[in-house]
């Protein structure tokens, strides 16, 4: 992930629930009360780019605590994890977060959650197979119903549509790559036949 990577920057804007551990007079605006001090124990949703450092940074005080503590965002909460365990394909990840995997990767760096990693790995593998299946199907439609579906990468009908709408950014990229690859392969085969 490069410094200039747009998706990585947008992932850093995802918010996670944080709790401040000390009173801070000047940060009231984070809790939408600019005139009041921010009290210890206040829960605020902070973007990753801010939360990440505040969670790691040490206050430097004698008790060695950090400025804020955090909880897992709802996108990675127990409900979602249970649903993913049951059937990864049935969960529209996009509704949880447009950058679901990116968010999850960040959170696993920060927390000691053991189970999450293996659940997500299984989720991705299962869904990736489904994605490539759909991507290939779309390639077929493009040549049969010529003109109509051409150009629109996501012009798919039927049952797959709902699944594809639930893809997060990373999965969408995968879908597009798989789809373009299948299409380019087909085009190449046809150009060979022509000559």
């Amino acid at each position, binding site marked *: 992930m490069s*410094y*200039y990577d747009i998706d990585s*920057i*947008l992932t850093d*804007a995802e918010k996670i629930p944080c709790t401040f551990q*000390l009173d801070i007079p*000047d*940060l009231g605006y984070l809790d939408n009360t600019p005139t009041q001090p921010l009290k210890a124990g206040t829960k605020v949703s902070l973007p990753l780019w801010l939360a990440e450092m505040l969670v790691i940074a040490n206050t430097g005080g004698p008790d060695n605590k950090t400025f804020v503590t955090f909880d897992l965002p709802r996108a990675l909460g127990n409900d979602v994890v249970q649903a993913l365990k049951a059937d990864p394909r049935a969960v529209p990840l996009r509704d949880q977060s447009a950058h679901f995997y990116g968010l999850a990767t960040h959170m696993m760096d920060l927390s000691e959650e053991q189970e999450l990693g293996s659940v997500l790995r299984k989720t991705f593998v299962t869904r990736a197979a489904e994605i490539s299946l759909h991507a290939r199907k779309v390639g077929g439609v493009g040549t049969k119903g010529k003109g109509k579906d051409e150009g629109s990468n996501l012009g798919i009908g039927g049952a797959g549509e709902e699944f594809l709408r639930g893809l997060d950014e990373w999965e969408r990229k995968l879908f597009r790559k798989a789809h373009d690859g299948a299409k380019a392969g087909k085009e190449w085969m046809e150009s060979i036949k022509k000559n």
Partner: protein
Amino acid sequence: MPMYGDQGNKLVQHAKRMQNLTHLPPYQTELVRAVTREVRDLDKDVASLLEPFQGSFDPSADQSTACTLLVNHLSMRRNKRCLLAYHRTRTDKLEELVWSGSDVLDLAGQQAGGANGATAAADGGASSSLSPQEEDYVRQYGDLLAAYKGQWTDIDLTGSLEPPRDLFIDVRVLKDAGEIQTEYGAINLTKNSQFYVRQGDVERLIAQGYLQKLG
């Protein structure tokens, strides 16, 4: 809840949308200005927070100030990243356009003109979708590319990678391009006329949108 970094985020969302476009949308002058202003404000805040300490600030003695400083610093860093990423996405696109041989400066003027009708076309340059710095960048990058290409006279680095099927092609002239010299004499390219010409002679004019390939 408006927060530091929100404006920067908008800028990056613009960049994200831009990645899927073939043309270059207008430069977000206002947003860029708002984000830089935010950085300046944050810097002023930091300066005034540190002022009473006279250069001897001890983070462990004043934790809440330390936290505020950290938040301000992170916000500035975030804004910087958003600004750089936005501009880099645009310059990448501009370089791509220069390599593909399209006349970027001319194109920018046309797009702006086309939106306001034909009458605005004359002063299209004023409402270009490029910032003045970007126009400069394109010009200099174009010069650089030309100098680089100049080292090899018998190969066109920006030429098409597709081998031509026919040496000669039919073209229609979309806009006046004046007279060009070919091996077979001069051709006067006036709008709406058609010619049967050697592909190599007109490839650049096709890329620039002066000619349209027929058949």
